[in-house]
């Protein structure tokens, strides 16, 4: 996903003045995109309110939407970094599964919930470092390296767990409390989700690490010439994604009270889809955390509406396909489209 200069710079798009100033209409486009997403969300909310007036807008339903979104949400934050940085991470679901399994083996469980949580985070970050290393220093294409990690991590998770679902022991139920304990009526894990989003936003928008991520993804050659250690940065991006998978593992363990090699199946597709619906380009160099989260909420909301309205699966799938298309058309004018 790298090619530095394939900038399909639309012939003389949006220049102005002698050399400098931009046409104002174009300036706001970043946020415009979000307006599209928010519009799509709003429409879904209206549909919810109309079709299920008494179930949809309840606090409990909103909380359940957020809890549902939390796992993939945390992963999506990491995926946004990787994709802006010009990469892709297919291993997220599998790494989360591996972290959940490792953290719930009897051996790990004997050290108590804190160690379990730390274990999940370390396993996730470690797996991310390995893929990151393969990509940055081993020169593997990200698609292949993370696909290999996907396959290997699932295999390892199955092997560790002997393909059994590992229950969290009663003495470690503090971990499960993340899902059952509520503060101000909201489960702890939703706070974790929110915290990861906020930290991710700050990291991306307010730190050199974040800004360099755009450079590494947008034009790696330019980044290198500017003195950025592109390889190290690339590796760190995957480690960050792995870290998010580790945190997601904690959440899924809390929600399901288990660690399992089957957790997170196909999360990679959902996470990537959310990032892209959110306006991040697969070619790297552009994108926002807020967009990704909005994209994810759209997905989650669609599912929730389907559940509330008891549609059958086939119709749901067909409708989902149409809604994806419509949501994207709503936020359509993707400035840097290929094939102009």
């Amino acid at each position, binding site marked *: 996903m790298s090619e530095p*200069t394939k*900038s*399909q*710079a639309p*012939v*003389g*798009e*949006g*220049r*102005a*003045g*002698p*050399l*400098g*100033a*931009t*046409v104002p209409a*174009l*300036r706001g486009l970043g946020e415009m995109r979000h307006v599209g997403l928010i519009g799509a969300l709003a429409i879904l909310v209206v549909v919810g309110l109309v079709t299920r007036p008494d179930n949809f807008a309840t606090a409990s339903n909103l909380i359940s939407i957020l809890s549902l979104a939390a796992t993939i949400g945390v992963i999506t934050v990491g995926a946004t970094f990787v994709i802006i940085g010009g990469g892709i991470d297919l291993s997220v679901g599998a790494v989360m599964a591996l972290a959940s399994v490792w953290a719930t083996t009897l051996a790990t469980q004997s050290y108590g919930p804190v160690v379990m949580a730390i274990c999940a985070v370390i396993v996730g970050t470690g797996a991310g470092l390995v893929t990151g290393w393969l990509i940055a220093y081993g020169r593997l294409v990200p698609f292949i390296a993370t696909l290999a990690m996907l396959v290997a991590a699932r295999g390892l998770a199955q092997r560790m767990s002997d393909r059994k679902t590992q229950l969290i022991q009663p003495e470690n139920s503090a971990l499960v409390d993340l899902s059952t304990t509520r503060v101000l009526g909201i489960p702890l894990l939703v706070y974790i989700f929110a915290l990861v989003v906020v930290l991710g936003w700050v990291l991306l928008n*307010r*730190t*050199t*690490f974040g*800004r*360099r991520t*755009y*450079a590494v*993804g*947008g*034009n790696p*050659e*330019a*980044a*290198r*010439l*500017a*003195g*950025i*250690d592109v390889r190290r940065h690339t590796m760190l991006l995957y480690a960050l994604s792995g870290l998010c998978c580790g945190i997601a593992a904690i959440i899924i363990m809390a929600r399901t009270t288990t660690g399992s090699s089957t957790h997170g199946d196909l999360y990679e597709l959902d996470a990537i889809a959310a990032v892209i619906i959110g306006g991040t380009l697969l070619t790297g*160099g*552009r994108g926002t955390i807020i967009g990704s989260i909005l994209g994810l909420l759209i997905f989650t909301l669609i599912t929730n509406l389907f559940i509330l309205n008891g549609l059958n699966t086939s119709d749901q799938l067909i409708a989902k396909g149409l809604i994806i298309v419509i949501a994207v058309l709503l936020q359509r004018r993707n400035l*840097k489209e290929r094939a102009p």
Partner: protein
Amino acid sequence: MLVMQGIVKQFPGVRALDGVDLDVRAGEVHCLLGQNGAGKSTLIKVLAGAHQPDEGTITFDGAVVRPGSPIDAIRLGFATIYQELDLVDGLSVAENIFLGHEHARLGFVNRAAANRAAAQVLARLGHPEIRPATEVGRLSPAAKQVVSMARALSHKARVIIMDEPSAALAHDEVANLFRIIRELTAEGVAVVYISHRLEEIREIGDRVTVLKDGRTVAVGLPARDTPTSQIVSLMTGRNVEYVFPPRQGREPGEEVLRVENLSAPGVFSDVSFSVRAGEIVGLAGLVGSGRSEILEAVYGARPASGSVLLSGRSVRRGVVGTVRNGMGLAPEERKAQALLLDQSVTANITLGTLPEFARLGWLDRGRERAEARRLADLLDIRPPDPERPIRTLSGGNQQKAVLARWLLGSRRLLLLDEPTRGVDVGARAELYAVIHDLAKKGIGVLLVSSEVPEVLGLADRVLVLREGRVIHEGAATELDEHRVLDMIMNGEAA
């Protein structure tokens, strides 16, 4: 202050540098000259830590240094403006300027400070109107060039290397650039300056080093006094000057293009002109005056109101239609708009006229290769191997391939946007001859160039543009450089 000795750099299949020497003094403007592919960019990339030399030493302030990466070079005090614009489109102007050495504390960027500092540098460069928060992807090539310069200035550098910085700049901008260079040298900074425009060398340069075929052929010639003929013959091994073929031998025929009331809001308005078969029409104007946009609109690549008639008939809008009807465009930004970097020179040359090499979609590859080879020879594209990936060619040779694309097939009208950008003196003469020959064969040519002498020397008729409007139209022979510059800068219609 800075000495490079015996530098050798080998690429797969090419020895780009074959023992180059360079000696730069503090406070001087040291010019690097050489034909396309002579190794100038490669040499400065070695200096900038972007390439590692296979042999040779670099001495800086008396000590041997080895810039192993761009960071090392920057730390040593070398700042570089690269030939290909190397900016990050998704970041702001300020972020690009300070990329890699951000204003930050504990990893947190201080955007206000960065924007302030960027505004200062831009003001110093004479472009306060470029706003630090603007996304670089939305700037014009010329503005990007300014940002690249700002980036180089933002380092407290002792040597500033500029690889064809003026290629994307118009006349007034170049003057501005020279002002900056003089300020820098006055402070003792050394400037390594690469350009194909000899008159620039004369104006700003102190000493000249000439490269040929990856070797140094002359060191430290005085920039002002060395005769042009000597420089040219050092570079090319023969004696040519900045020459334009004579206009005789061409009889403009029927009208091939008629443009009426072409307007695109905010870009250009009410542009009308015509081009006849065998005629070369030049568009002169400042950067940003709308010349490229007019070409694109004529070509059908950008929406505009008004009418475009090709041989009296209106063509279907859109590039597919205009190309089918015999138009061709050599665009301004070769990397972004013209080249398939991964493909061979041949594939790049034949891209616009593929149907002519095919029957029912089936390619005649033998004929394709033969034609590509013929053109590569004609334009002296080097290395003379059309099957080589075009990304391994130097900038000027890539440009020749872009032109070659439209020398194929039966074109009635060619639109050439800065056709000699980055092309060396020797090759320029060849390109001029080729353009002239095209016209002789009855093809209409519409030419945009930021070099006024080029427009005046090549074109039969000149349109002068200012802020999107045609302010003068007339025979080239009735104009001189001075008058054109007056018009485009001060708007004095004759």
